[in-house]
């Protein structure tokens, strides 16, 4: 019997984050053989026709022997992926209605990606932020580095605010080589400045994927009793009758998500919304599926 995706409730009971990531990735590998999509890889190999001025060292003589045409072949080292995980550790991520918080879910997701990429031989780095950058680990492909990274992910979320722009600009400053940026956050902050930061990331050649982690209670606003609602970050309170505002809340949240999705679509980034009730394998699967789309390309805009 083939195992199905693991229920997040069950998964979150595993205390060890590394183990959790491993469980997910191994389950994913076993499931992936059933998948109709064979040969997925984040590796990107490219043959390019020779043009005068190219270094002749990279000519593929075998292809030349077969087809009598000059093609350039990239080195293996060049195609290795450098991935940076950018994890939101603000206090809004500590909200959770299903027995675990968004922060735990996001950490598991990040660890899963780190482990998965590590297995593929790619370098993984981490940048944790709330209203400022809390931790930064450069992308490396070492087992000890993976451990440190998972340790940093286990740090509790303490931030009193969410500043989405500053960490991205720090990434632009620090990560010079093109790579993959995975931004995991609940994006519960104004989006006005985010587009500019994402644009800069794209302009630097980074491949950006946004994971929008949301609690089911946030999505459906499934409260019944009128209550004094307290903002987990600012402490501001508001007397709210959920029945009265539910419709408007969901409408405004959907508009927020739609704005984010539209922004990503415009900039050529990937956007995935992840309710914390959804198995993490699905996130991984969707991610890889999105990476494999033929139409996908990085747009580089001159609007900088």
């Amino acid at each position, binding site marked *: 019997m083939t195992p199905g995706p693991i229920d997040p409730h069950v998964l979150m009971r595993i205390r060890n984050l590394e183990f959790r990531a491993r469980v997910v990735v191994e389950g994913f590998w076993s499931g992936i053989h059933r998948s109709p999509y064979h040969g997925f890889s984040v590796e990107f190999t490219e043959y390019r026709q020779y043009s005068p001025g190219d270094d002749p060292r990279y000519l593929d003589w075998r292809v030349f022997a077969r087809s009598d045409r000059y093609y350039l072949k990239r080195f293996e080292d060049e195609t290795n992926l450098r991935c940076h995980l950018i994890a939101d550790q603000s206090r*809004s*991520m500590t*909200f959770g209605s299903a027995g675990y918080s*968004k922060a735990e879910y996001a950490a598991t997701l990040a660890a899963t990606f780190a482990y998965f990429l590590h297995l593929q031989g790619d370098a993984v780095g981490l940048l944790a932020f709330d209203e400022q950058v809390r931790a930064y680990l450069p992308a490396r492909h070492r087992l000890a580095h993976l451990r440190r990274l998972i340790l940093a992910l286990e740090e509790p979320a303490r931030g009193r605010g969410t500043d989405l722009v500053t960490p991205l600009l720090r990434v632009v400053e620090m990560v010079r080589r093109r790579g993959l940026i995975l931004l995991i956050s*609940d994006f*519960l*902050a*104004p989006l006005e400045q985010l587009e500019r930061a994402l644009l800069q990331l794209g302009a630097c050649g980074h491949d950006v994927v946004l994971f929008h982690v949301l*609690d089911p209670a*946030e999505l459906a606003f499934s*409260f019944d*009793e*009128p*209550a*004094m*609602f*307290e*903002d*987990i*970050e*600012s402490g*501001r*309170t*508001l*007397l*709210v*009758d959920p*029945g*009265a*505002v539910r419709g*408007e*809340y969901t409408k*405004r*949240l959907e508009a*927020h998500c739609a704005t984010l999705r539209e922004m990503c679509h415009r900039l050529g980034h990937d956007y995935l919304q992840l309710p914390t009730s959804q198995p993490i394998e699905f996130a991984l699967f969707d991610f890889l599926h999105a990476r494999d789309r033929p139409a996908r390309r990085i747009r580089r805009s001159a609007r900088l």
Partner: protein
Amino acid sequence: MSFLAPLFLLGALAVALPIVLHLARRTARQRTVFSSLLFLRPAPPRLTRRNRIEHRLLLLLRCLVIGLLAFGFARPFFRQNVSETPPAATPQRVVLLLDASASMRRGSLWTQAQDRADRWLRQISPRDQVAVCAFDRDITPLVTFEQWSALPAGDRAAFARSRLTGIAPGWASTALDHALIRAAEWLAGLDEQPAPGLRRRIVLISDLQAGSRLNGLQGYEWPREIDLSIEALDPPATSNASLQLAPEPADAPATPGESTVRIRVHNAPDAQREQIEIAWANASGTRIGTNLALYVPAGQSRVVSLPTPPPSAGADRIVLRGDDEEFDNTLYAAPPEPARVTVLYLGKDDPADPSQPRYFLERAFRETRRQTVQVVVPASPGTEARADTASLVVVTDAPDEAQQEAVRTHLARGMTVLFAPPDPAAVSALARLPGLDGLSAEEGRFANYGLWGEIDFRHPLFAPFADPRFSDFTRIHFWKYRRLDASAIAETRALARFDNGDPALLEIPAGRGRVLALASGWRPADSQLALSTKFVPLLYSILESSGAAQPVPVSYVVGDRVRLSRDPARTGAAVTVTRHDRTGTRVAGTADEFADTLVPGHYTTDPVTDPGRFAVNLDPAESRTTLLPADELERLGAPVARPPARAIEVAARAARLRDAEIEGRQKLWRWIIVATLAILGVETWLAGWTMRRDLTPSEALQ
């Protein structure tokens, strides 16, 4: 059950408050931590949910408390069967005053007034006593209380009506104050103490025109328990302009050949028409000469000079055209006759000699519009008769026997003698007269010249000079004087003294008359008096104080008494006064006043008296036909009774007072407050019990 303040029952609507609070229970007690309030807005709990009312008993108690409070504040009481039989119509004593002044001639006012009086007389009960009076300038009783009481009850109203139909509005002005005071005093004077239950009223039926005289009401203290009911008529809304003779300036010289009459044209404040025409007319009403067109804005007056047509044209009145009311559009204008004053001069000097006093005396009295002064001497032929009626006797020389007799005669008539002796001998001659024998004089001389140093400005003679602008006599220098001594004559007053203390002007009483003795006359040899600006006013002042030169009224108004001065030769003879429409009135020989000026017009006397012809016109106040301000009578203290609409208010107020009294006796609100407090106690206990029951064990421990 009734309520004293039923509006407080609206307070029961406040029961909505506890109901709302019970629906909105405990909303604020829960706190929910949420990731972000970014997409939330304040939404206080709505209360549309069903079946969410908890603690129904508590709610019921709280609603009951509010309801009871509202009920208590509304001051409930049980209406008792108070005997509310309407009071029997109290007997009343009424003076019905009917305005019959000239302004009642307008439109249908008189018919209205009679209808109103008729209607009012129909409401009279047999127990009432009524007197009916018509009034204009005077009050005329038509039916007295005695006549009323003497008649059978059924005939009284008919009798009063028959008396009312027999009269018509006259031409006199409206003395409303006089009529009201007379009526009030009539009512008050009938009995010292009014019988209990007897109501005393004055019922006034009038057009209440603004020209009604009300001055007498100021400060008048109305007798108690007399009230005034006003039956105001509804005058037609018309334009009215009026004519009035404006007095000529007193010092305007008579210019022969150019004669004008000054007319004041007044337009009523509510007038709609402002183009007025005035013109002369004759007795048949035919206009003579050109019309004078005037623009007189509403509420304003214009004074114009209307050229007098030649006497041959027969014009004797000025008519106005351009307004709606005819009753005051004719002004009878008699040419003003200057008063003829005679001054008897007793002296021997030549009137043409500028060094003698007579020369100056004749030139001082110029002819003016108001008076013509003629200086006569006894010797001149044709002046004997006039010398007898002289208002002033001037003696400037030693009087001979005949002159002394003339002086004595005039003094006996109460006339004034101005005595300016040229020498002490003249004084001695005058001192022979009885009563003046204490008068003596000697020649006095000034070192340089003398001045009038002390003048009694309180005396009527010098009163016109009392103003500091005119009181400077120091520019008149006196060269010679007679030192007069009249100390032996009682009540002699020195009206002026020289700066050396000697009397300059003595007032010596003599019989019924007086002698004004000048120590220094106005001959240039004596003084500069004749050349000074004070000379002419001083002579006129002497002339006026001697009883002559009384200003003749320009025109009389209806109801005025005209004083007729007969020729002394005909004293005691009967005088016939004839109006221009040939209706004559004989005046008794001894009467010197004509009072029958009831109709405007020209009146002539036969035989000729002074005045020989005079005009009687409508009182200008009667032309002010706008309405009196509504509260003018009340402002003047008249006890104006309230109209029926206000009587209903009074009844309602009385009912409210009665209710308040019943409620004050019952005081149900106290029991309601007690019940409210009891319920509040129960509610407090129940609320406490409910709260303790609802607390969780941990909350209870805290």
